[in-house]
């Protein structure tokens, strides 16, 4: 029977899963398979599993429960193996790599930071500081109906915006880097200009949070910083 795989932990991990629900409806029952060193938390794989909110939450809750008692390697959502035996084979095959990653995330949590800037205030600043952009804008507003003008303005502004946001993102990373053991950036989505995860030691969490708050104060009201954590170390496994 196909099994859904949640996490890999050391077999010494207590795996207090109690009655935590698994994915699927009705929720599958969690169990573990493994060897002397490594174990995987699994459940029967429900038929036609889809990434519904409940299932994503179940996957996430397993990681959060496990990380309270020791290092955990969270799988990406949605992976199934043919049967228990296939999971055991993978644990054997990748034993060294898994053990190495478990050591790397031991005593650490992931903090995930996304940052956005209010678009109007950003554009105001670009217009205030670029004579060329301001001049183009005035011409368009003045009724010039040359279709090249909005394109020229837009291109100029887009370049300015990108350059500014790259500098901002770099300065945020630079400020937080010394407080984290590892970092992992992704392309930002939507209005965000920064999407980054940090691996932070438990001892360093308070300092890290304080620094993010300080940064947010420095950046001011036009910025929206969303910090999530402590989280399972999804980005560092």
């Amino acid at each position, binding site marked *: 029977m196909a099994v859904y795989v949640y996490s890999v932990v050391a077999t010494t991990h207590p795996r207090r899963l109690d009655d935590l629900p698994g994915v699927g409806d009705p929720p599958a029952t969690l169990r573990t398979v493994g060897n002397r060193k490594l174990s995987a938390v699994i459940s029967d794989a429900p038929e036609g599993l889809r990434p519904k909110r409940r299932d994503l939450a179940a996957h996430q809750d397993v990681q959060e429960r496990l990380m309270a008692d020791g290092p955990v390697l969270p799988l990406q959502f949605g992976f199934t193996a043919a049967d228990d035996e296939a999971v055991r084979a993978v644990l054997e095959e990748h034993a060294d790599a898994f053990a190495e990653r478990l050591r790397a995330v031991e005593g650490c949590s992931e903090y995930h930071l996304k940052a956005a800037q209010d678009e109007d205030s950003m554009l105001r600043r670009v217009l205030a500081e670029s004579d060329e952009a301001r001049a183009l804008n005035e011409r368009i*507003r003045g009724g010039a109906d040359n279709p090249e003008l909005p394109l020229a303005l837009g291109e100029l502004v887009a370049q300015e915006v990108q350059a500014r946001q790259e500098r901002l993102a770099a300065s945020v990373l630079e400020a937080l880097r010394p407080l984290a053991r590892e970092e992992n950036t992704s392309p930002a989505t939507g209005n965000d200009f920064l999407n980054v995860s940090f691996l932070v030691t438990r001892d360093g969490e308070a300092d890290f949070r304080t620094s993010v708050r300080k940064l947010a104060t420095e950046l001011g009201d036009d910025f929206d910083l969303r910090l999530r954590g402590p989280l399972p170390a999804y980005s560092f496994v």
Partner: protein
Amino acid sequence: MTVVPQSGGTVARGGGANSGNLYDVLDLILDRGLVIDAFVRVSLVGIEILKIDARVVVSSVDTYLRFAEACNRLDLEAGAKKPEELTDLVGDLTEDGSRGKAKGALSGAAEAISGALKEGSEEDEESDEREKEPVRKHARATRRPSRHRE
């Protein structure tokens, strides 16, 4: 500025305790985490919409036009910053008009501009007030994530 720490900051509070925060970590659950090649991944159809929301490539005509439009609109709102220059301009126009041959038409235009300016400056005062009103920013901040959810 809004910093949203995860509520409580503690882990493992059991079944679905953190579902409220799920949205913000969705990309981690779906795109990061351990990937094992030997395993099969369930279909993520239905969640692809998240990928579509990937940041618009900055160098596209659509982006340029959108930025240009936003700037045009923005400057009209922020026009309050140059009332003196504009008043001067109207003055010049009136003078030109009185010197020119098509006097009637030009002074008519100048009046129209003065009228527009008055309306404009009233609006500007309003928008300046709104500027200081924090509610406006919150409205904007909440609009952002809701767009992702759609």
